[in-house]
């Protein structure tokens, strides 16, 4: 296993290097550079433009600049933003990456879980209007044009019903006299939710190992304890008001991304379940006298999980790049929006930094997929 991981790490590094090379030259191939954009004013003499170019290193040939960039990158220096000069790129990523990860990780997990559970049940109860309705809903969500759907969601929840804010990360008017910065509040939100989730998972995992009578009590406790803990924490710290403002802004984009991803997961689970149902070992399980629910969850769903798992992990990898559309429509200041803005103004260090994050996330999620396979399917082993 360790040898596999080691070899895999080297492969990932090589892939990343190739990825960086391709993206660097593609961004550089855009006509014009940031110096042109910053000196659009006709009163600025051309010499000044050349001086700016030389200062940013843009007068060097692309190959030389790429080698300098890569050299600095692997020494931990991602450069400074051209547009927000002299802000370090790493700062920008540190600020925006958590926002994107929270948005898409939450949506991915939610859509995966709901899609898997409903797909499983739908495959089991076939026929009738439920099957038609859910299949049509699934296909609609799976194929819908994302920007249109996101706009419709904004129209419905933010305009027509006026329940949720239409976009952005927070409402600036509420933060005028905030004691700490929005990023600090957001970081606390991430950590507290993480600990709460860990408690829930450990509680549920442990509840399967105790006698049935204590099971419900333990499960209720593992839900209530983190919930009460969260409420107390935000109440006592006095930051609850600000955390709620960010959370409110998070709901609509999470809901939209969840719904779009849900359709595919649900349909995939359903198809995968229907295929697995035809297997002989499912008949054996029924012949053994196992109740329907056990046959479904233990024997069918467990085998049907594999392709769905692939879908989940790949969607995690693609979430950052796919998020460009969502983040733009919801004005969510994450990595996707940053990437789009920096690419538009040829802010090469920021564009490269964010694209590298996309590449690294994709590589990591594929690694997680492969490790997950080994856990899910005993036939898959790595050497």
């Amino acid at each position, binding site marked *: 296993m360790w040898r596999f991981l080691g070899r895999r790490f080297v492969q990932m590094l090589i892939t990343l290097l190739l990825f960086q090379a391709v993206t660097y030259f593609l961004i550089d191939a855009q006509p014009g550079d940031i110096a042109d954009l910053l000196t659009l004013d006709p009163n600025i003499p051309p010499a000044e433009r050349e001086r700016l170019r030389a200062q940013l290193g843009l007068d060097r040939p692309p190959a030389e600049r790429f080698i300098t960039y890569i050299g600095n990158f692997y020494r931990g220096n991602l450069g400074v933003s051209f547009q927000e000069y002299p802000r370090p790129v790493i700062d920008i990523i540190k600020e925006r990456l958590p926002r994107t990860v929270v948005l898409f990780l939450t949506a991915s997990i939610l859509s995966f879980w709901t899609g898997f559970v409903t797909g499983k049940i739908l495959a089991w109860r076939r026929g009738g209007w439920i099957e038609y309705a859910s299949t049509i809903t699934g296909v609609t969500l799976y194929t819908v044009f994302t920007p249109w759907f996101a706009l419709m969601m904004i129209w419905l929840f933010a305009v027509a019903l006026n329940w949720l804010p239409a976009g952005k990360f927070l409402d600036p008017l509420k933060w005028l006299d905030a004691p700490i910065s929005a990023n600090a509040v957001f970081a606390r939100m991430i950590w507290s939710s993480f600990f709460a989730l860990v408690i829930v998972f450990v509680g549920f995992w442990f509840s399967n190992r105790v006698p049935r009578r204590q099971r419900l009590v333990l499960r209720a406790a593992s839900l209530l304890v983190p919930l009460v803990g969260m409420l107390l924490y935000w109440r006592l710290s006095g930051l609850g008001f600000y955390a709620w403002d960010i959370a409110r802004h998070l709901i609509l984009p999470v809901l939209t991304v969840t719904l779009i991803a849900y359709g595919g997961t649900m349909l995939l689970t359903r198809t995968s379940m229907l295929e697995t149902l035809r297997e002989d070992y499912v*008949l*054996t399980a*029924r012949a*053994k*006298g*196992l*109740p329907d629910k056990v046959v479904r969850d233990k024997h069918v769903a467990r*085998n049907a999980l594999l392709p769905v798992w692939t879908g989940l992990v790949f969607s995690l990898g693609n979430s950052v790049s796919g998020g460009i559309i969502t983040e733009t429509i919801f004005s969510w200041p994450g990595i996707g929006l940053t990437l789009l803005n920096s690419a538009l103004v040829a802010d090469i260090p920021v564009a490269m930094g964010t694209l590298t994050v996309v590449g690294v996330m994709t590589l990591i999620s594929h690694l997680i997929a492969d490790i997950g396979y080994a856990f899910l399917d*005993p*036939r898959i082993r790595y050497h």
Partner: protein
Amino acid sequence: MTKPLLSVENLTMHYTTRGGEVAAVDDVSFSLHEGEALGLVGESGCGKTSVAMSILRLLPDNARILGGQIWLGDLELLSLPEPEMQKVRWGRISMIFQAAMNSLNPVYRVGDQIIEALELHWGDISRQQARERVAELYQLVGLDPALMDRYPHEYSGGMRQRAVIAMALACNPDVIIADEPTTALDVIVQDRILKRLTEIQKKIGMAMIYISHDIAVIAEVSHRVGVMYAGKLVELANTVNIFERPLHPYTAGLMASIPSIHGEKRDLVTLGGEPPNLLHPPSGCRFHPRCARATGICIEQEPPFQDYGNGHYAACWHPMEVDYGSH
């Protein structure tokens, strides 16, 4: 005669398909006594497996049981509520499936799949006891108990077959239905497994229904043989009688089509024609279009399933020979 362990009475089962009703099992009756091995033989699609699936009530959604009763002791299985039926499955009637190669779930250890059945039907059994029981079963079928912690893909075809047999034996069922258990295996492995199966059957004394299209295999393992044709049981007798004096022309045809390596060289006799389309079964005796002895009555009326003495039953208007004297 003692009360039979399992008796199937006038079982009729149809499949509803896009083309219409398929009469897969039509008015089939037979019984199985304690310690007995009954063979069911017939061409593919004659309804052998459908009979087995009706007994366990594991039929697909498009199947409908139109009539008949299945008695397991004093229990009538067809009218049993589903939770009760779940106790009967594997607890009292277990099955070795046609595609035994794929009857093990690939993601669980083989031993755990047997333990799953034990824990379900024997309830208060500790993990350690269950593992000991699996080890015992593995020895019985000729497998190394150390293999129980391996996954199905680490087993060879013959080993998987043995594990499936061990699983079928796990809860000491009254009846085991073996549906073509050795069809997917090569002849040598097939022979070894059949020998082991008959040994176990004698040793434990359980009753068994053995389903196969291979009449040689049936001859080797069963005490009595039922011959099925187009959803009907056409002949039922003990193994010696059915081989030595078949009454139904179809049975006679089956016997004649077995090549023999002993005795004189003879031409292999084959049955002409094709198995009937069960969407539109032939009138009267379903075998009449392929039967050399068919006359007018065979086309018009269904022959009754009657006793020719010695427990030899057949459904034919013109049986091959009647030498039991009672008729």
